[in-house]
């Protein structure tokens, strides 16, 4: 095992441990926990047995194992960006709903309690439109 493999395996083990701890502390649901642990284990396997990756790459019609890892990385990154963007949109919608609810409740409170005094409105002396 070379130095890179040692560092990578330690790093991936820490990440797997952190993922499991996050699940145990209920910060993460079971589905995402299984997904991330699977990803870390696959990455560890690719580090430990690079030649096996080349065999898999050949099976998929890709020349080298390193290329397969790069392609998978790019696809995973794009999917990740998309998921984060969709989540961001949902979050923005929730912010809007909260802001709206606050605005409506505040207005209803003010106008129903009569807090909004007529005095601070200007008296319009214009004639109404016919």
């Amino acid at each position: 095992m070379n130095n890179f493999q040692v560092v990578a395996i330690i790093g991936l083990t820490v990440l797997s441990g952190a993922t499991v701890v996050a699940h145990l502390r209920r910060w993460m649901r079971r589905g995402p926990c299984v997904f991330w642990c699977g990803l870390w284990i696959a990455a560890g396997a690719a580090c430990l047995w690079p030649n096996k990756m080349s065999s898999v790459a050949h099976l998929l019609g890709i020349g080298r194992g390193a290329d397969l890892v790069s392609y998978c990385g790019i696809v995973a990154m794009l999917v990740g960006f998309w998921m984060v963007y969709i989540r961001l949109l949902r979050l923005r919608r929730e912010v809007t709903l909260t802001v709206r609810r606050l605005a409506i409740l505040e207005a209803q409170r003010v106008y129903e309690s009569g807090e909004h005094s007529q005095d601070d409105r200007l008296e319009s002396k214009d004639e109404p439109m016919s």
Partner: protein
Amino acid sequence: MNETVLSSELMQQTFIVVPAYNENDCLERVIRELRLTRANVVVVDDGSTDETYDTARREATFVLRHVVNRGQGAALQTGIEFSLSQGARFIVTFDADGQHQVEDVPRLLQPIYRGECDVCLGSRFLGESIGMPWVRKMTLRLGVVFTRISSGVKLTDAHNGLRAFSQQAARQICITLDGMAHASELIDIISHAGLIYQEVPVSIRYTKRSLTKGQSPWNAFRIVFDYLLSRTSK
């Protein structure tokens, strides 16, 4: 019951929703003109950083404030929901930048009063547009083509902020797109809900200020992106 009394009564049941973001310069004039119609003026201050809220509070019938800026679509939905909670029978949406003409409001409401349709959409291409730059004209024409393709609705002006809804139609409106793409979403909602709509000629007067503050033609790409994304992520 004569025509004038009927109009007056109906106007009192009409709520004009004015979304406003940093529009203090012309908001006072716009609200004063709108109040001449005897309708209830609902200003939704969309997190303005100038004196828009104070001006609206002084002049409008109702004022709502978004604590942070959420966009015109979000402000419109807030105004519509509030108006319905106050028993509005008719709702008009009206821009705060002074481009729309108050005289068009009764014209827009007439077909709904008469029960001819549920929604009236203002069209500057059926009416007149004063001082419209050709780039804006081209962008709006492309918007019409885009709406025709995406929603299958044939309109002459798909992105006009001057619209009127019956109470029944307004109850079916649920704008989820906060930004300017809400105009396309609104057409989709009208189409999917099977609401009867009509286009009414209106006048739009572009001023130096409204053009400076208004949408850049490049925003059209953002609007299309937001709209298409909303259709894929629903």
